[in-house]
């Protein structure tokens, strides 16, 4: 018998022995005559229905979790990594600007040696007043860019519903401590004034216990940002530009605008910082790879070795190399090819960390993938992205088994 069959049999037995069938007429009579244990509750419910007050709003609430966001991208969260998702994050410290209009909570987090993923939710303290849009959106953008509402811009939607537009943003604040070079954010509206934000970043800090500071920002933006160009033309609401040309708005203070310079009228930014600790519960297996052959046009770049770290969540390849060139002249990136020489970057690659410089003059770059087995051999292709050409390849072979 399967678990499901056992479970059903058990609860079927329970229902058979314990349940007394509901008599519908009696139920209706109880409700209408306001008798029985539930008459107070039933009466209150009826009143709530008649006057249209709360208690009957059973519309399914939307909530976008980590797996909802990753499904929309090429990211894969393997089944055994799902259990690593932390859904009970307790804030240890919270600080915010005065008179903030928002609340923020960290909903889910997932970390391993090489990456950190967080979902946090920003909601309005006073409901029914604001329309939250992403931090880089403008009122003329379509609502469908971040919500399920189609065929209308944020401005049109806000005007139709009497809402004030607010740009919501944020991300991880203590990036240096975590060894984060850059992060990506995705916004998804869970309601007019509720925004779920997914933050993903590669990190080099592989401590098992990490303190993370997450920031949410809110900026009231009830008009188009004003952009003034050097020719005096502008985009957006012209009324906001009145007086700007004669003000100290421009760089040199004489009312003119520096060539190429753009500025926008921005309201005060409200912030909320949440500090919390994440425990890395992932396990790491490391394989070392050495160079068995190379095919390079010159000796400008030399790969020394590579280390492959594999967790439940991802595969991270640390390429250790050196170069005869000055740091400023290095415009290279590494592409990983499988043992047959086929490019595997596009299918699974999450992101690269960028070049890190060590004290002894050597360098390394981390290339991150969804979890995958690198096998006994693979190739590292050295690519010059300024000249847009391949400089050569290194063939790597595993020194020890996983």
């Amino acid at each position, binding site marked *: 018998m*399967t*678990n*499901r069959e*056992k*479970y*059903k*049999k*058990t*609860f079927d*037995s*329970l*229902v058979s*022995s*314990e*349940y*007394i*069938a*509901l008599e*519908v007429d009696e*139920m*209706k009579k*109880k*409700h209408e005559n306001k008798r029985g*244990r*539930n008459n107070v*509750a*039933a009466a209150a*419910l*009826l009143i709530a*229905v008649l006057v249209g007050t709360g208690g*009957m709003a*059973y519309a*399914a*609430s939307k*909530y*976008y*979790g*980590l*797996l*909802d966001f990753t499904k929309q991208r090429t990211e894969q*969260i393997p089944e055994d990594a*799902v*259990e690593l*998702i932390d*859904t009970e994050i307790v804030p240890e410290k919270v600080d915010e600007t005065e008179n903030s209009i928002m609340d923020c909570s960290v*909903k*889910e987090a997932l970390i391993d040696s090489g990456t950190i993923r967080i*979902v946090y939710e920003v909601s309005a303290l006073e409901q029914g007043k604001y329309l939250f849009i992403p931090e880089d959106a403008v009122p003329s953008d379509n609502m469908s860019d971040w919500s399920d509402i189609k065929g209308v811009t944020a401005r049109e939607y806000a005007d139709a519903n009497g809402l004030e537009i607010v740009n919501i943003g944020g991300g991880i604040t203590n990036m240096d401590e975590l060894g984060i070079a850059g992060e990506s954010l995705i916004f998804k509206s869970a309601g007019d004034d509720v925004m779920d934000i997914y933050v993903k970043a590669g990190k080099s800090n592989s401590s098992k216990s990490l303190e993370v500071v997450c920031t949410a920002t809110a900026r009231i933006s009830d008009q188009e940002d004003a952009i003034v160009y050097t020719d005096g033309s502008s985009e957006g609401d012209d009324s906001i530009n009145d007086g700007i040309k004669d003000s100290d708005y421009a760089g040199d203070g004489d009312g003119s605008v520096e060539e190429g310079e753009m500025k926008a009228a921005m309201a005060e930014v409200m912030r909320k910082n949440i500090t919390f600790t994440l425990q890395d519960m992932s396990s790491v297996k490391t394989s070392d790879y050495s160079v068995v052959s190379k095919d390079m046009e010159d000796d400008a770049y030399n790969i020394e070795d590579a280390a492959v770290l594999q967790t439940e969540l991802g595969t991270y390849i640390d390429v250790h190399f050196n170069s005869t060139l000055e740091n400023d002249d290095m415009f290279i990136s590494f592409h990983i090819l499988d043992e047959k020489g086929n490019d595997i970057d596009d299918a699974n690659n999450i992101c690269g960390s960028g070049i890190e410089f060590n004290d002894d003059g050597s360098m390394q770059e981390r290339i991150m993938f969804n979890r995958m087995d690198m096998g006994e051999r693979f190739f590292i292709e050295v690519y010059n992205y300024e000249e847009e050409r391949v400089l050569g390849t290194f063939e790597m072979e595993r020194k020890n088994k996983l």
Partner: protein
Amino acid sequence: MRKPVEWLVNEYQKNLFAASYAICGNAEDARDAVQDTFIRYYTSKKEFNDDEHIRAWLLRVAVNRAKDMNRSFWRRNTCGEYSEELANTPVFENEEESDLFDAVMALPEKYRIVIHLFYYEDMEIKEISKVLGISESNVKVRLSRGRRMLKDRLKEEWLDD
């Protein structure tokens, strides 16, 4: 669309009772939760897309009502989350069913609800997330942890899923 409450009672009352019992842990509160659920449907003007929509709505209301009962002042001050004394332990055909029931009722409420909707109501992760108003990842985490706890308690009696 709407269906007559009599039809819904006939169709779903046992399912709602099972779900409510899995939360409350006693027949009396579970029956009250079921009755409250149908009263809410009866007095509601809500329109539904199809039968599945109604079923999900009923389950959601029943689950919420049962959770409310668990949190009531009286319950908090007279017993823990699940009290065998209050429950008047039901009678099962065999020891295996009794062990499984005890193991399920020993789970924390939030894992118990997900386990029940998955195994008894045959709901998929997506459906469970909508009924409970939580993310799919949260459902998966609770399901995974609930299963692990059942395995720890029941050992070979609970197969690896």
